């Protein structure tokens, strides 16, 4: 029984390694003709043998960071309401809503974005087709907010009661307790949740693919069309399997893998050192 369980665990644990090995090996044809640094900093122009993925990297990073910048304060506010700044009935309902929202399919966010947000952005800014970074940013931040909120709310409830009672005894009202005691002492939980949400925003494919416009260029503003690493993989997959263009998607895959596993490792590191530093 024990051996069987161990074998199953081992088989499952091989999977993350296998993914890394596969994407690394299949990108090999690229390194024969180009240097690694060139590929990471070069531009995408497959007609003229340009297989650099720099524009996609910039876009992925920009989109992930900006959607986090929107989602972080919103999640903090929502977690605050759930935690106790709202009347219990509202807090309970909001928590329910947030839980249900974690289940919204990404493709539905994209779908609504295509028919509601894209025309709206086109009308308001009178520029281009409306498929741009901004159109992807709004649903993406909305998509990561619920999980982030639940994460934050969990971190808040993990704070020792004595600490809150102490603050209350000193005359702090709920808002003061929230800002001066709860948020600072939940710092690690907040950090872990944020790092994980960064990985999630980076890994999203459908919203960026459907809404960001997919032009393989370094965007100069939020109204520009741009292509993320994930969308690049989905778009190039149909190319000729022998081509260098095809090999480049595995390079994108490798970059994504490294970034998201770093996020997972960092979150784990932050989480496991929870007990040591509450201050």
């Amino acid at each position, binding site marked *: 029984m024990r051996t069987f*369980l161990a074998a199953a665990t081992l088989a499952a644990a091989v999977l993350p390694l296998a993914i890394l090995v596969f994407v690394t090996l299949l990108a090999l044809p690229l390194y024969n003709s180009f240097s690694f640094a060139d590929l990471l900093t070069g531009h995408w122009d497959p007609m003229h043998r340009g297989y650099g993925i720099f524009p996609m990297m910039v876009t992925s990073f920009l989109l992930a960071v900006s959607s986090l910048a929107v989602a972080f304060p919103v999640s*903090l*506010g929502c977690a605050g309401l759930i935690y106790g700044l*709202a009347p219990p009935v509202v807090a309970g309902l909001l928590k329910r809503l*947030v839980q249900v*929202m974690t289940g*919204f399919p990404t493709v539905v966010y994209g779908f609504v974005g295509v028919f509601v947000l894209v025309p709206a952005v086109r009308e308001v800014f009178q520029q281009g087709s409306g498929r741009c970074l901004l159109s992807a940013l709004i649903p993406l931040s909305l998509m990561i907010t619920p999980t982030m909120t639940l994460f934050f709310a969990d971190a808040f409830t993990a704070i020792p009661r004595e600490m809150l009672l102490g603050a209350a005894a000193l005359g702090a009202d709920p808002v003061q307790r929230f800002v001066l005691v709860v948020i600072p002492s939940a710092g690690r939980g907040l950090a872990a949740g944020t790092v*994980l949400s960064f*990985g999630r925003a980076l890994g999203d494919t459908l919203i960026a693919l459907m809404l960001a416009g997919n032009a393989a260029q370094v965007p100069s503003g939020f109204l520009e069309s741009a292509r993320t690493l994930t969308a690049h993989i989905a778009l190039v997959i149909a190319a000729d399997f022998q081509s260098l263009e095809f090999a480049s998607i595995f390079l994108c895959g490798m970059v994504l893998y490294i970034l998201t*596993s770093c996020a997972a490792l960092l979150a784990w590191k932050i989480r496991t050192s929870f007990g040591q530093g509450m201050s």
Partner: protein
Amino acid sequence: MKPFWAWLVRGFCWISGFWLFFGAIVVVGYVAWRGILHVTPALLFGSVSPWDALLNRVSVLNGLWPATVGTLSLVLGAVGLAAPLGLAAGIYLAEFSRGRIKEILTVFFDVLAGVPSVLVGLFGFSVSLILHKTVSPRFGPCLLVAVFSLMILVLPYVIRATQTALEAVAPHTRLVALSLGADRIQNLLWVLLPSSLRGIASGLLLAIGRCAEDTAVILLTGVVISAGVPRSLLDPFEALPFYIFYVSTQYASQEELNRGFGAALILLGVSVTLYTLAYTIQRLVGHWALYRA
């Protein structure tokens, strides 16, 4: 007299709450508004009679039936594979591994949980590419590859839910059977697993939801727009989320667009139901267990 900033903080929290509420209303409201009238038997079966479609006598060309069957087979296959493997790994992590090994394995599954779905799809695709070259040229992206990839995608869910649920069993419950002379395996089968069923079940429900919803994985592993009801594991297939994606990019008629909204509403309804169920039966398991990137 409260300080001004306290009002500001409170106001900000309420604005955040309303923003999220507003977002949810726009998504649900718009899909429901455009889709509700089209959720009829004709949405699924088109002009074919439901009975003929169910018995697979006539193939449905203008309905969602093939896509629905495709999604069902994906869910059944992937969760069917992920459940035994994930349960085994979760039990091993919670009950039999200790110290450094446990820590390393947990990190491995954390990393796996963070791998973007498009990458999991890419992995499945490259596996099929290699099988195509080495085993048989008949092999390509197909239902089997998609099921295998989706299994990888939801495996961390099942493992984590199982592990967390087992670890949350109260110490005294854990000791009673042992003190009565049960061995470790008996204790596991008759006490620990039954008392962590809620957590495990909610993990499985979320895994089902993920499989039904994920588009990026199947996009790379053999989903197509017209395959009919899947006949074998080695054929391409249709699926609801891909249909929604396809309609948003290139719908040819108003009728197709209406079907897209119908499909979006159905998928949204299914996901919301599954997640609500999962959160309702989940008591002991923390959100961490159910979180995946």
